[in-house]
């Protein structure tokens, strides 16, 4: 995570997760992807009750077990040991994906390789000819969950923009992403394109635009600053 962009300023991984967590309403059924998205659960504001789904077959996933308390038959979609909360339920894979594909899960937070300004998401393959293709449940999640949030560094390690006009990598789904949380900004996918809803402290609009592969639109809360 030592990109040039990061060293200038912006949110770190924990702060990105914390910012995303603010947008998880009370009572939501939520599926969190592997990596930074997993951290969102730690930061959901106090006073909200959220139920976590893991697609291998559990609703009501709890926190990681204490060391020594791991059960190899109680794991999450990342194959890590988890616990269950009171009121949890186990079910088989078809029922679990019916929750996803039948639009019963409210929010899914995922990582991304690229997001296009129309909401296209690429997060499963670079399309490199020697790569072993592996997709897991990513395509089911983006096609089926009501709201898709992405948490990602704004640029790749080599400084390439991940928010682009058109994805060059193979898609996971078309026009599926609603909002993106990066180290630099919170950006909504709108019919007009990427709209910047918030900037990380110390980051200005032009700084983000310079690191984005598509035109950014200032959101309402930013408009006065940018235009005024």
């Amino acid at each position, binding site marked *: 995570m030592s990109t040039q962009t990061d060293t200038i300023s912006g949110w770190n991984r924990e702060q990105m997760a914390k910012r995303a967590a603010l947008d998880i309403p009370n009572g939501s059924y939520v599926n969190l992807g592997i990596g930074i998205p997993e951290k969102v659960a730690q930061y959901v504001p106090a006073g909200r009750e959220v139920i976590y789904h893991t697609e291998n077959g559990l609703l009501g996933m709890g926190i990681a077990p204490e060391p020594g308390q791991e059960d190899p038959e109680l794991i999450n979609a990342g194959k890590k040991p988890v616990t269950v909360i*009171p009121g949890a339920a186990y079910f088989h894979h078809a029922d679990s994906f019916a929750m996803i594909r039948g639009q019963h899960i409210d929010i899914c937070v995922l990582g991304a390789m690229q997001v296009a300004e129309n909401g296209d998401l690429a997060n499963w393959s670079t399309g490199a000819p020697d790569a072993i293709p592996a997709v897991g449940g990513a395509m089911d999640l983006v096609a089926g969950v009501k709201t898709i949030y992405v948490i990602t560094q704004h640029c790749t390690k080599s400084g390439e923009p991940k928010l682009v006009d058109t994805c060059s990598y193979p898609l996971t789904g078309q026009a599926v992403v609603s909002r993106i949380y990066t180290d630099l900004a919170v950006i909504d996918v709108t019919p007009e394109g990427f709209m910047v809803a918030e900037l990380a402290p110390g980051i200005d609009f032009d700084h983000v635009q310079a690191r984005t592969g598509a035109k950014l639109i200032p959101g309402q809360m930013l408009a006065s600053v940018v235009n005024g």
Partner: protein
Amino acid sequence: MTMIDKRIDSVTAVVADIFDGATVMVGGFGEAGSPIELIHALIDSGAKNLTVVNNNTGSGHVGLAALIENKQVGKMICSFPRTANSTVFPDLYRAGEIELELVPQGTLAERIRAGGSGVPAFYTATSVGTPLAEGKELRNFGGRDYVMEFGLKADFALIKCERADRYGNLVYNKTARNFGPIMAMAANITIAQTGAQVEVGAIDPEMVVTPGIFVDRIVTVAYPAQESKLVAAGRSYP
């Protein structure tokens, strides 16, 4: 803490927003699993021109038969609209006052399960070569003909269960389980009447039949009426 709590106090309140023209799935196979108190509350509410999905069309003059008799149902989607002890549906059907979409029972169940699972259409061998396949798309897979059927969704589902917690996790009683779990998946708003409410955690996660994600509202009816007893006593509703 604002807890998730899907419990509602009264059967009146729990069905209050069922609107005219809504599609309503009603659980039960005969009287087993029939949410009779919810149906009677729907009669009280007066919602009209409903499309109702149920395997049957009710018995006597209570429950689903009473809802139909009260002219609140514009269309029935079911597999078996005849019963020995009710002429409510047949009379209205012959009078042209109610529409019928007849669906084989297994196709009905599969369509409901598909509707709740993001499957807009599927193929089945059931009904091929019969009048119920007329006008439907046929397609051959592996040398056998199948008919295309559509997933079925609803605005509301009214179901009955044995126990529920505030998350909406449900368990059922014996063969009263029937359509409850799949209707809960297929409806936008699922309303369950439960014989008992239990604390979160009281239902073993291995035993949950309908996970709470499929349930929106719970109302307790500790001593539900037994439809066959009402019918035997000649009761009618309202």
